[in-house]
């Protein structure tokens, strides 16, 4: 023990210097903040991860309490050490955030009373969290209580900026190409779509044979784009049928689609100058049950033996039942669907099949309206752009630069 007077302050200084790193090594508490880009029912808890690996079996326990009653806590989250780092929330921290920090989303509020179940967090209400580490032997070490934070709803989801930019670019291209189409309608080339070209042939065949044309809607309602496309085709087919005076049957699985089909066909007959030929009983609601619909339409096909069957819309398992029965009756069949699972069945049993976007192109193809043709061109431009993006992104990702891949992430 030094007895020199100068040595005593030096010794005290040495002792303080030795104590300081220990103080600096004391565990910092959790930081609580509002979870970004949400409806105001979640909070984000962060705390630094220790540099050294934590022993196996270590866990963290997060409890939440109202800021007004910090002692009445409820469970918020429990997680094993080594999981749920900042890098696991790229929508918050971006990609490559690493493992220097834990980041946990919590969305459970403390129970209102003892024994109550957990509820959602209330936007605008102030909460605090208590973070505890549980060692493998069960020892609990309180790491700290956070400052209060308030969850709030956000008016714009910044995670979807990539989505809105794409939509604006696509919309901008649509506007520009529509203007180009208006100035030069002859310049809008569209390749031949055999299925749509064959519609005239199908109606003509039915007229010659004196047998009806069956138009079979898919199972989806009017909110499905494929049904809208089917109604477009129905309008054009109806006009042709009215001109030729051919018998016509339109089967529907949805009452709203039936009502729209009635109006569409009535308009078609009116445009063709043959409103007297329109019959209400041509457009029938069959059933909203999948196989009842299929059974009924098949029965109609077998009894009435249509010369042409047109299947347009979204189909499920009944597609093969319908088309195979139609093929057995000797009808010419044209199908169009965006249900990729049913495309193989239509291709094998129908004479012509419109696949996916060819169905959506029908209204533009049949009407040759410049505005509609412009939307086809926009689809093609979008596809070209996406193809280029895919190639560039795949190449860059292979070279270890995932920027383009990350940019296209959907959250």
């Amino acid at each position: 023990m030094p007895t020199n007077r100068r040595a005593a302050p030096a010794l005290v200084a040495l002792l303080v210097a030795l104590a300081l790193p220990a103080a600096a090594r004391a565990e910092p508490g959790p930081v609580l903040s509002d979870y970004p880009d949400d409806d105001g029912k979640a909070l984000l808890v962060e705390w630094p991860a220790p540099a050294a690996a934590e022993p196996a079996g270590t866990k963290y326990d997060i409890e939440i309490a109202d800021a007004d009653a910090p002692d009445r806590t409820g469970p918020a989250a429990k997680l094993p050490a080594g999981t749920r780092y900042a890098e696991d929330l790229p929508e918050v921290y971006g990609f490559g955030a690493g493992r220097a920090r834990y980041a946990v989303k919590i969305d459970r509020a403390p129970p209102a009373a003892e024994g109550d179940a957990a509820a959602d967090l209330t936007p605008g209400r102030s909460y605090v969290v208590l973070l505890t580490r549980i060692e493998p032997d069960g020892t609990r070490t309180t790491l700290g209580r956070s400052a209060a934070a308030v969850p709030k709803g956000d008016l714009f989801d910044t995670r979807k900026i990539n989505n809105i930019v794409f939509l604006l670019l696509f919309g901008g291209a649509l506007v520009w190409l529509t203007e180009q189409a208006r100035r030069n309608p002859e310049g809008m080339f569209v390749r031949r779509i055999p299925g749509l070209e064959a519609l005239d042939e199908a109606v003509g065949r039915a007229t010659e044979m004196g047998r009806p044309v069956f138009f079979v809607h898919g199972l989806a309602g009017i909110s499905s784009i494929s049904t809208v496309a089917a109604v477009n085709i129905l309008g054009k087919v109806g006009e042709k049928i009215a001109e030729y005076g051919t018998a016509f049957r339109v089967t529907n699985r949805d009452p709203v689609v039936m009502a729209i089909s009635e109006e569409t066909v009535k308009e078609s007959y009116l445009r063709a100058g043959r409103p007297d030929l329109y019959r209400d009983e041509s457009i029938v609601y069959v059933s909203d049950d999948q196989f009842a619909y299929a059974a009924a339409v098949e029965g109609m096909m077998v009894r009435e033996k249509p010369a042409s069957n047109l299947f347009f819309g979204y189909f499920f398992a009944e597609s093969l039942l319908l088309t195979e029965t139609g093929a057995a009756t000797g009808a010419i069949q044209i199908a169009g669907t965006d249900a990729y699972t049913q495309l193989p069945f239509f291709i094998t049993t129908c004479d012509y099949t419109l696949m996916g976007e060819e169905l959506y192109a029908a209204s533009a193809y049949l009407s040759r309206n410049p505005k509609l043709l412009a939307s086809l061109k926009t689809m093609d431009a979008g596809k070209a752009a996406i193809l280029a993006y895919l190639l560039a992104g795949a190449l860059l990702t292979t070279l270890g630069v995932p920027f383009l891949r990350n940019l296209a992430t959907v959250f």
Partner: protein
Amino acid sequence: MKRTVPLIVAFTAGLFGCLVQYVPHAAAQDALSAAVTWDRIIAAFAAFLGIGSLVFAHVRRVERRQAGWGYSAVLLFGFALMVVAGLYNGGTGPFAAEVNAYPDGTPTPMTWLFRYVLKPASATMFSILAFFMASAAYRTFRARTVSAALLLTAALIVMIGRVPVGAWISPALPELTQWLMDVPNAAVKRAIFLGTGLGVIATSLRIVFGVERAYLGGD
């Protein structure tokens, strides 16, 4: 007016539906939920349109003794039977909660009809698919062109590779089957999705901005 009001409604609803996807605030999401609920209620009322059309069409056919009127009579009988069973509701009437079984566990008439008539009929229709697939395959899988030959070969590999006898013939068959499903099939599926996705966006924009008007009943 007859066309302008629906176009305005379509534009407003379309714009709302699009914008609300980018607004996570609870008020926007609650508004969207309410709109979806209204849509379901309107669709439920639309069911009466369909029922009316169905009943009147088949009653007319029975009255006029048109070809196949017997089937219409069967349909009307089945329709009436289900309606009566549903309204009976196990003896509790149409305004009580749905009753599926009596206290002793016996199914109510509605449940019995659903379980022992409707479901077996649906299952029967579904089971016919296997035979229809076989007949479609027999008729279609002819190697007339290069693409048809490719289709035939791929179909044979997948069909045999998916059943245990495929692995017995050669362990490479199931692997080749899986490769066909994972690589060329998945690639084409994604290509179709890509085209379909862009088509949906383009058609939706056409409807929202009033360029596409077929849903109004005509051009």
